[in-house]
């Protein structure tokens, strides 16, 4: 497991040491449903900045987030936010903004009505100004007077984010916030979160997509099978990922000739030809392999028809990290 505490200004996750500036403290938390253990003895602190909660579907991310927002009770352990228990503590929600994974909205409401209602519920003073500001932040001023039933998936997510931001919370907890967002919206969302984090907020977001979190969060918590598999700076996690062995399948017009040539590459650890005639390459340096393989094919006049990774799923990535 990789553990790299970082400074609060960059956002941080401290798995084992208690921190005075911790905004969220998860202390030996477990949650089970009957005989199924969803979260098992997880401990970490989260400080200001952007923290990504990463894990494959069913890893326990949403259960963990629900406990961090007070929506679910822990079976064992404690969760505190701003030093207070978050469960059954409604006044704390003045300081917290939560956007759940489910993108269902009140379809009959106009976007602006929804954000205003969220502001009213959170006791926002100078409501109209706060609503204007929140809607402008998500760049939806043009669509604010349309019923939300007419919105695209990405627009619904953004208007929900406006509702989450309307009371200017110090802590933002976002569960799969980029669901349904197109590339332009993702870039906008990234800049928005970075701006909010730069203002000193604590932002926790979950995702099952590695690259998504890589673009947004400086630090990550990797959750696998309900356990904290790794945590710390993303760069350290990424370095560990780059060192893992990859199986790459290469389909060509001359598999045996290709196998003989490719085994000589420094980036290749092992090679074999499968019964279908594809060359299976084991490499610990995929970046170099990506560069060397086309050059090799050109120099040996071999025609490459398909090159594909065989174990690039998030589950296999996490599996590798857990083994480490």
């Amino acid at each position, binding site marked *: 497991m990789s553990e790299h505490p970082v400074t609060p200004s960059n956002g941080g996750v401290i798995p084992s040491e208690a921190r005075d500036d911790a905004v969220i403290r998860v202390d030996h938390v477990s949650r089970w449903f009957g005989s199924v253990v969803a979260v098992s003895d997880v401990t970490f602190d989260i400080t200001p900045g952007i923290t990504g909660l990463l894990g494959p579907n069913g890893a326990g991310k949403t259960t963990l987030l629900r406990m961090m927002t007070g929506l679910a009770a822990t079976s064992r352990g404690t969760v505190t936010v701003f030093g207070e228990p978050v469960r059954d503590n*409604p006044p704390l929600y003045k300081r917290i903004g*939560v956007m759940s994974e489910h993108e269902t909205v009140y379809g009959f409401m106009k976007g602006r009505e929804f954000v205003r209602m969220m502001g009213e519920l959170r006791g926002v003073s100078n409501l109209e100004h706060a609503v204007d500001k929140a809607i402008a932040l998500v760049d939806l001023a043009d669509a604010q007077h349309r019923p939300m039933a007419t919105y695209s998936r990405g627009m619904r997510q953004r208007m929900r984010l406006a509702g989450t931001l309307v009371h200017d919370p110090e802590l933002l907890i976002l569960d799969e916030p980029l669901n349904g967002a197109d590339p332009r919206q993702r870039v906008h969302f990234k800049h928005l979160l970075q701006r909010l984090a730069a203002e000193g907020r604590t932002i926790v977001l979950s995702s099952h997509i590695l690259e998504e979190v890589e673009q947004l969060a400086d630090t990550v918590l990797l959750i696998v099978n309900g356990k904290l598999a790794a945590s710390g700076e993303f760069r350290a996690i990424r370095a560990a990922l780059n060192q893992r062995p990859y199986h790459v399948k290469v389909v060509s017009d001359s598999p045996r000739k290709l196998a003989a040539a490719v085994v000589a590459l420094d980036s290749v650890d092992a090679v074999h030809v499968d019964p279908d005639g594809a060359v299976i390459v084991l490499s610990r340096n995929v970046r170099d392999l990506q560069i060397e393989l086309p050059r090799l094919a050109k120099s040996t006049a071999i025609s490459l028809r398909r090159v594909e990774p065989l174990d690039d799923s998030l589950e296999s990535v996490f599996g590798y990290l857990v083994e480490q």
Partner: protein
Amino acid sequence: MGSVYRLTLRQLSGKWRLSIMTVLSAMPVVIAILMLSSEQAPSVREFEQVVLSGMLAGSIAPMVVLAIAAAAFGNEVEDRTIANLTLSPIPRWHIAVPKLLAVITIAAPFVVVSAFFTS
């Protein structure tokens, strides 16, 4: 509390729901008219037992109220929009009471109008 009340009123004011409530509420009135127009008109006591106590108070009114009350919370839970309310810095009764008041606001006219015309 006003936000939750207004939200619930709008949730419960769907065309289909109001149409079904109207049909249910009209049933005792229609049956009363049929009974009164028949050659063997029932006595006041029979009418009271069959239509008012048996049908209106015993089944129609509870069905109307139950359908509306279940929708007030059920739709929020089913659509998973309930978190918008429960993650607010307000006590739980600030959610429950306005929802109850909204249910009464919507259901009461149906029950009262139905009872008035039936009796």
